[in-house]
Structures are given as C-alpha cells and as structure tokens.
C-alpha cells in the first residue's frame, strides 16, 4: 500500500489565530472526524476487532485447536456459530484466534516499522551529509522489491535460521519459550514485515521534515534564536504528526493484509496456529461445497481492512486542513 504524502503547512499566524479562538488543529480534527460517518463506522469496526483480538480467546466457546472428528465441516449452527472446519474445529474460535494473530502481528509491525521509519526519515532530513544520503538510497533499494516478494524470499531464507537458533537456545537454556515453533513463526513474520514496512514511513517523514525545515515560520523561529530542540519539538513534530498518524493507520491495514497473504501462501503462521489467510487457503478446496469456510475468514479480513481504509481516509481529511477546506 502506498503511503499518502500529506503536506501540512500551517503558518504561525494561522496558529496564533487558532489559539485565540481556543481551538487547536487537534480539536478541529476531532470535530471533523466525529462528523464523518464513514470514519466513525470504520472506528467502530476497528474497536470490535481490537476487543475480539484481546479478549476473544478468553470468551471463545472452544479451544482453537480442539478437534471433533465426528463433527467436521458442519454448517453454522447454535453450537458452532460459524460451523466447523475439516478437522471439526470450531470456526468461530479459530476466527477469534486469527484476529489475535492479525492484531498482534500488525501492531508489532506498525510500532517497530513506524519507529524505525520515523527515526531514519528524520535523521535523513536533518543530517545533510553522507548519512542522510545512505538512508535514502537504502529505502530506494528496499522499495524496488515488491513487498510481498521480498517478504516471501526473506521468509524462505530466514525461517530455517531462526528455527535453528531457537532450537539451539532451547538446548542451551532449557527455557520452554524457545521450544515453541509458533513464537519463532511470529518472530519471523513480524520481523520481515517490519523490514519491508519502514522505508515508506521514512520517505514520508523525510519529505515532511524537509519541506518544514525551510518553511518560513521555521526560518523565523531559527532567526529569532530558537534552539534546535525547541524547533524540533514545537514546530517539526506537531506538523509531522498528522501525516504520520494517517500513514500508521494505512500501515496497520497493509501489515494485516501482508500477514494473511504470507499465511495464505503457507509461509506465515504455520498450523495449528490460526491466521485468517491460512484459514482461507486451507479451505479453498472445499469452497464449492462449504462456502462458509472461505467466506467467513475472507469476509472478516475484508471488512476489517475496509474499516481501516475508511478510518484512515477520515483521519486524513480531519488532520489535513488543506483537504478539509475543500
């Protein structure tokens, strides 16, 4: 997914005016977002998704690995709201665990990838020497790989390595956590997605900071003797925050999509771990006869990504005064 570049330039005069009216950009954004039904609808779906991911596994009626071989491929019923899969596992429970997988991976990827991107992007913009150039060349290189292909390739090469290291660590330390293949899986998937997700953010932040650095109000602050720290905290950070938040929302959605795409291709979360993408590919053969086995995870995935898209658009309109006025 592309990172939206949203230039936000709010002159100091306009800022002062707003302060007089006791209105900040953030309060404006909040009112604007509240009034946007699409953004609010998206926000509600996202909240449901987050709640399902956090508490879902505790309230789910069955364990996500519990097999009932006498009740395989049941259509939805009162006992199994979303039916059961080919091993008789309760589909609702697996969907809930899949939500946890998607949420966990996407959150980690967004936080880590976003942090790396912001730090490197800001560094590239503020230091004009070799370092900045080197960072931007690195983003050029990483962005010339289609994300999924780099992720697939890194997965094929790094997974055996990580699993090997995990086994060694388990032998040395005897700590149970290193025996878990599932944690190794999560680690590989989330590391790779963080690797491919930061360059977009770095470019956005660099562009933002560069355009602000030579904006008149920043020059004015500098001329009047403001310390660099003051300029960064009072001018650069607040004005960069809006686009960064919007882009983080988009990044969260695309991290979710990439995780399920990897799992769909069989290189993400391995069975019996639950991932929506893996659930789709596991049941694709049966799709003609048991459509709910594909429709439910596919539909849930699409709805959540849809919600993130609408929420991101709403945020963009709210945080970008230029587009709001139109």
């Amino acid at each position: 997914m592309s990172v939206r570049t949203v230039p936000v330039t709010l002159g100091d005069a306009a800022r002062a005016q707003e302060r007089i009216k006791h209105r900040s950009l953030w309060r404006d954004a909040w009112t604007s977002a509240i009034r946007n039904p699409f953004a609010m609808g998206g926000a509600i779906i996202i909240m449901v998704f987050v709640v399902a991911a956090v508490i879902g596994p505790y309230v789910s009626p069955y364990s996500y690995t519990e097999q009932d071989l006498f009740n395989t491929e049941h259509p939805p019923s009162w006992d199994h709201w979303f039916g059961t899969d080919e091993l008789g596992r309760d589909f609702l429970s697996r969907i809930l665990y899949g939500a946890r997988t998607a949420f966990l991976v996407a959150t980690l990827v967004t936080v880590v990838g976003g942090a790396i991107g912001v730090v490197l992007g800001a560094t590239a913009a503020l230091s004009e020497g070799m370092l900045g150039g080197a960072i931007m060349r690195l983003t050029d290189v990483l962005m010339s790989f289609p994300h999924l292909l780099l992720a697939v390739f890194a997965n094929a090469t790094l997974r055996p390595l990580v699993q090997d290291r995990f086994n060694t660590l388990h032998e040395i330390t005897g700590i149970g956590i290193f025996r878990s293949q599932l944690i190794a899986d999560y680690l590989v998937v989330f590391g790779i997605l963080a690797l491919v997700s930061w360059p977009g953010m770095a470019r956005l932040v660099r562009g933002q900071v560069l355009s602000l650095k030579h904006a008149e109000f920043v020059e004015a602050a500098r001329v009047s003797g403001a310390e660099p720290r003051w300029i960064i905290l009072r001018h650069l950070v607040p004005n960069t925050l809006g686009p960064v938040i919007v882009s983080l929302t988009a990044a969260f959605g695309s991290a979710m999509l990439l995780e399920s795409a990897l799992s769909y291709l069989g290189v993400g979360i391995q069975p019996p771990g639950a991932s929506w993408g893996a659930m789709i590919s596991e049941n694709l053969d049966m799709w003609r006869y048991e459509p709910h086995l594909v429709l439910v995870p596919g539909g849930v995935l699409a709805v959540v990504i849809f919600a993130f898209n609408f929420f991101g658009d709403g945020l963009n309109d709210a945080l970008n005064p230029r587009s709001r006025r139109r």
Partner: protein
Amino acid sequence: MFLRYVGRRLLLSVPVMLAVIFITYSLAIYGAGDPVATIVGQTEQRGNEELIERLRQRHGYDRPFLVQYVDYVGKFVTGDWGTSFQLQNQSVRVLIFRTLPVSFQLGLVAVLILLLVGIPLGILAAVKQNTWLDRLVVSFSVLADSIPSFVLAPVLLVVFVLKAGLIDSAIGWDGIFSQKIILPAVILALGPMLLIVRQTRFAVIEVLQQDYVRTARAKGLRGRTVVWTHVLRNAVQPVITVSGIIAAYLVTGSIFIEQIFGIPGFGQLVVTGLRRNDLPLLMGTTIVAAVIVLTSNLVIDLMYAVLDPRVKYG
C-alpha cells in the same frame, strides 16, 4: 540532451540494482545456511562431510563472501542465473523467461482495464465532487482495495462460473483473446484501482481550480470541452507517477491470481519455488521482480520528460 538524460538515469539505476542483488544474495547465503549441505541433506549421502566439502569447492561456496557476490553478479549479468534445485535442474533463466511473457500479457490487459475504468471514474468523481456519485465511486474503489484477491477470486469464480454460468471455463491460459482472461485480469486490475481513482480525482480537482480552467469557462466553453482539452492532459501525469507502484501491485497480484486460475506465469513460478523451497529459483524471481519495478520507474521518468516540457533533464 534527451539521450544524455536517458544515459544518466540508466547509470543511476546500476548501484540500486547491485544493492538489490546484494541483499538477495546475502539473505540466501547467510539466511538459508549452506546450500550444498541442504541439497546433500535431502539425498542418501546425508552427513557425508567429504562429499559436502567437495561439492562446496566445486560450486565455489568455500570462497569469501564478497568474491562469491561479485561472481554471482557477473554470472547474473551474463545470463547464468543458476539452476533450479527441484524442477529437473532446469535453468532459472529459462524458467523465468518462459513464464514472464504470460504474466506480461495478463498484466497488460489488467493495465488496460485499470486505465479505461479508473481514469474515467476518477474524473467523474472529481467533476461531481462531494455529491453522492463522488462518494459512491470512492467507496467502490476503497471496497475493491479492501478485498484481497485470494478472497475475491474464489468468490467470483463460483458466482460467474458455477452459479451464473456466464463463463464456461475460467481456469487455464489461452492467450489474451480468450474469455478465460476476463476474470483474472479484472481481479488483477481491481488491486491498484483505488490508487488510480484517487490520483486522478485529486489531480482533476487541482486542475479544475487553476486559472486557465476558469478562463476557459469564462470564455464560454462547455464543461465537457474544458474537461477534455484542459483537464485530462494535466490529470494523466499523476497517474504516470504511480506506475512503479502499479507494477509492484501487478507482480504481487499475479502470485495469487495465477495460482488460483492456473495460469502458467511468473506468479505461479514464485509459488512453485516457495512450495518446494527452491532457493536459486526464488533468488531469480525476487531479483527479476525488482528489475520489473525499477524498469517501470525508469520508463515512467523518461515518459515524464517526454510528456511534460516543464521537467528539466537534470
């Protein structure tokens, strides 16, 4: 002047390409472990250290990493992309060049659909800005963007082929002039649709606010004429700008779509390499995918220079 610009641009993409190969190669060497041991481990000679050592020497894996890297680059440039581990030891280059034309044709049809549907939709949304039509178009494109192709493809397959019977057989590949291409091409085109609609809409809205458009209106030109003569030409550029992203979308999309529709293309090859853990093949496809994106970026830059006289060759 123009040729010098082309040359400069080509020269600039060389280091990027070298870095792409460097990342791919170091991932393959350091990540996956010793390729020779991996292959031998799959045969009856497992644990035969002497054999492993002999094979390592023969294939040059005992040399320092940088030497191996430079050697790989040299081989890659001269067309020796290694042999596939699994597919009867076929040359990776032959495999890729056999499948690439299929994907290219599919991608071409998808781009055609994308442009013929996306640009008019974007213009429509911009001209009718903030009406229900605008919201409908944008919502439709967001929806198209939200449904992953591996969800949409099976749904459409069942709806169009099994239930409605509109298309007799949708699986396989018969070239671009068969009805089998309709579904995969449409699904492939839906991926970057949102991007195109958004870009066009935004560009047209910008252009509509320009003074020369107001002048054109003021001198009495009809709305449609204004759009055709003034707006369209200026609105195409932002679409060209995102072509690199579109290329990446198409390569990625082809992985899922070709696998589901049984199209023997590049994406199918990637899935095969993945399923069989065929590292030389995956190295080839990953580098070639990056080459595709880089090339389209290059072509875009050159087109930009040709189309827009304001762009300086520099």
